[in-house]
């Protein structure tokens, strides 16, 4: 499928389905839905603009939209918060953009069986404003907690900063309704029960529809896990004179076996340098601090108090210096806000320029972190030598407890890119660098992406290599579920699934 086929009669049909107030063809509506925070060559923005935007209000409307798209062979791209970092919600082939933000209702709060049923356009922060009143929360806590939405969390299968205690999106979404690429509505979970967390009936379909980046359908409703609102919260930050010690300490902390341990985050020296740049809210630390490990615990007071003592002991016995209550609590409280501060961008001569934040996130085992870190920084350094628009904003890795099945390390390198000056040559070099970064992750037995997905230019090229035989299965699944390549076409190299078909 190449050209788009959105014509006036199609628009009329869309209006018939979604109502005249929820179909937009104006330029502003379309242009503003062609970007996510990840930098892309701004001069090529126009290539990603959808032809029409709809804001449906029900699953049935979405289903009708998808059926219509099938009839006319028009691409459909789902979009939730538009905060995804792998361009998933950016249309590659124009078409119909289905924005789920108007579907943001809480449909049921079930305090007996501890679930909440929501529409996909709701945000975690807003959801928890309601839930807190009932003494419970939905504990999916990415750094994008104030801006990403449940639909996008499922679309990307994200990581939560407090996942060690509560699990990640994959564990916290119990089941959901999804419109398949041909328009049918189905419900998937562990087995068939909507509120059942663990079942062994049939295939594990829930996982198939987690993290597909909108290539396998559109989630229209989800049942989520509720946990008691934590009575106590404890954050401890430790500083280290060098990376090696900090890394060993991270391992010890994460393996502590403390059940209330929610997260362990390791910041390297590049990252500290970035954070320290003229940040008014940054609590100053001594110059000899090179690395920081941030830990946090959640639970009942009875558990957290003694656990905190043990945590402090492990942190200090493994070479860390406790940074004090003010830094620990203050910095943990601002954990959502420190990611993308464009003015911390620097050219090599020290000049401040507004840079966009780009991150590459791999899933890496603890034992391989030092090697991966070294090679990744080298890749970015080589890039920076050639183009002054790139700046290494450092690395961090976080895990949620190595004693848990999800105890890998989300390993991220953040790169500042002066997007205003990004041209084709720099962009191509950047895409190559991303490919190299992904190759390192695979070489050390890791996975290209821990939470953002790997469907962007560069890393996506290595997905077949990482998945091996699984890639063949993936293509077959796509083809079976989406025979006409309607859903988010062009993503994840999935056009390969249709090679040999009539155009």
């Amino acid at each position, binding site marked *: 499928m190449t050209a788009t086929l959105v014509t006036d009669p199609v628009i009329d049909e869309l209006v018939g389905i979604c109502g005249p107030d929820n179909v937009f063809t104006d330029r502003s509506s379309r242009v*503003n839905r062609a*970007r996510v925070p990840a930098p892309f060559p701004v001069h090529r923005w126009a290539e990603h603009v959808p032809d029409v935007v709809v804001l449906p209000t029900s699953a049935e409307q979405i289903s009708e939209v998808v059926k219509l798209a099938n009839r006319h062979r028009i691409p459909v791209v789902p979009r939730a918060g538009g905060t995804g970092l792998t361009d998933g919600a950016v249309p590659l082939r124009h078409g119909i953009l289905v924005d789920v933000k108007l579907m943001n209702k809480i449909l049921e709060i079930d305090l007996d069986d501890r679930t909440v049923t929501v529409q996909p356009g709701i945000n975690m922060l807003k959801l928890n404003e309601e839930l807190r009143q009932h003494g419970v929360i939905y504990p999916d806590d990415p750094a994008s907690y104030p*801006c990403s939405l449940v639909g996008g969390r499922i679309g990307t299968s994200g990581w939560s900063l407090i996942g060690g205690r509560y699990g990640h999106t994959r564990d916290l979404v119990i089941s959901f309704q999804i419109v398949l690429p041909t328009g049918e509505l189905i419900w998937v979970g562990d087995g068939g029960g909507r509120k059942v967390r663990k079942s062994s009936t049939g295939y594990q379909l829930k996982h198939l529809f987690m993290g597909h980046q909108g290539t396998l359908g559109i989630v229209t409703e989800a049942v989520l896990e509720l946990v008691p609102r934590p009575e106590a919260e404890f954050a401890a930050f430790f500083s280290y004179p060098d990376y090696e010690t900090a890394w060993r300490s991270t391992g010890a902390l994460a393996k502590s076996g403390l059940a209330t341990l929610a997260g362990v985050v390791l910041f390297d020296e590049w990252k500290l340098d970035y954070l320290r740049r003229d940040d008014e809210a940054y609590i100053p630390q001594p110059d000899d601090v090179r690395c920081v490990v941030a830990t946090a615990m959640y639970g009942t007071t009875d558990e957290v108090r003694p656990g905190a003592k043990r945590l402090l002991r492990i942190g200090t016995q493994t070479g860390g210096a406790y940074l004090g209550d003010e830094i620990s609590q203050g910095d943990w409280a601002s954990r959502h806000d420190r990611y993308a*501060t464009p*003015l911390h961008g620097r050219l090599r001569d020290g000049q401040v320029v507004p840079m966009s934040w780009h991150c590459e996130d791999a899933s890496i085992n603890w034992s391989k972190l030092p090697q991966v870190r070294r090679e990744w920084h080298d890749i970015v350094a080589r890039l920076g030598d050639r183009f002054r628009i790139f700046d290494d904003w450092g690395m961090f890795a976080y895990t949620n407890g190595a004693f848990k099945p999800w105890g890998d390390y989300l390993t991220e390198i953040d790169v500042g890119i002066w997007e205003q000056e990004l041209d084709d040559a720099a962009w191509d070099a950047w895409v190559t660098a991303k490919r190299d970064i992904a190759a390192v992750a695979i070489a050390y037995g890791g996975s290209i992406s821990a939470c953002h997905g790997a469907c962007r230019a560069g890393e996506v090229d290595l997905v077949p290599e990482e998945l091996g035989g699984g890639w063949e299965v993936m293509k077959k699944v796509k083809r079976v579920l989406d025979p006409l390549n309607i859903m988010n076409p062009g993503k994840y190299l999935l056009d390969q699934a249709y090679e040999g078909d009539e155009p």
Partner: protein
Amino acid sequence: MSSTEREFVEQWRNAAYNCYSSGHKFCREVCPVTQVTRNEVHTPTAFHANVVAMEKGLLSIEDVARDYVHCTQCGACELRCPNTLFTGDFYRFRTRTVQLVKAVRALAVDSGIHQPGWQRWVEETNRQKSEPVLGDVPVSQEHVRDWAAGLDLPVGGETILFCDCEGAFHRTSVPRAAARILQAAGVEFGLMREQWCCGGPAAEMGYAERAREFARHNVEDWRAVGAKRIIVFDPHDYISFTEDYPSYFGDEYDFEIVLFVELLAELIRTGRLALTRPVERVVTYHDACRLNKRKGIHEAPREVLRAIPGLTFKDVDHVTQWSYCSGAGGGLSIERPDLTAEISRRRVEQAGGLGVDTLVSACVWSERPLTEQGGKLDQPLEVMDLLEIVALSAGLEDTP
């Protein structure tokens, strides 16, 4: 691209990029308009991204002018923005969405693009010199002091009480309470000879030249009566006099602008105003956007409420209130009354959840939509101005 548009883009492109390149949209869920419409083109971040898109030739002012109606200029997005939180003053950069919205609206007007409601509104204000307050109230210069009937207030003097249009013509009980409180506390003050609209709303809607005209008139009137100090109870006027006017007149603008709630807190603190009568009400406070979010004033009104005997005050922390608004500001109620009503409805619903009988505000403009929606609740909520409730407690109720 027209030359005005090019100039505009030149001026704003870097500021816009500071948002565009962050792009995290933390501002979105606190924006009162976005919370209702859920439409990405009504988000603070889109307001910045549009400038970048204009620079790239993807959008023009015609494409986006209407989108910028969707802002109450409450300032929540600026506060919530990590750029402001973390690097605020160091680079002399703070995300200034409110200024940007005003600037784009002005660009639209300069480019001949008008929003019908706003255009009518500005024309009416120009004719009457005061805002065309709704209802049967006669709005004109002959009536601008009607609210003060029987209060025996002088004209002129060193201290002037500035009464905004909504108070002067529509919610007269508020300026009356203000005047009686000042009298009771022994504060000498007078009124203007001829008081025009402060010009703030015209500036907010993009009619910059008209706004300056109003401002020039008022400043001349102040000078003519020897005023040095201007007391304002309406937060919108406070913004005009402390932000817009200085930008128009530069150094020659040397008036002291006194915000009534701050003065009030001081009068109570120092015992010049005695609050003796218990007010048996259960209240919560509506943090007016232009006080709390735009000016960081949230303590004084709380201090005043806590000083009222008999009152049960159920407070909501002022940061939580970043995500509420009455929906009345920034001209939204003129172009999108439906949105104002829905934003107000959500606000009173929140207040109702606290089990209060009264919602106290310190912004006259918020009171009309809040009152309307408060009356529709199952357990209706009364909306009172802080000054009205203080007047009650000071034994100054109005018996006309």
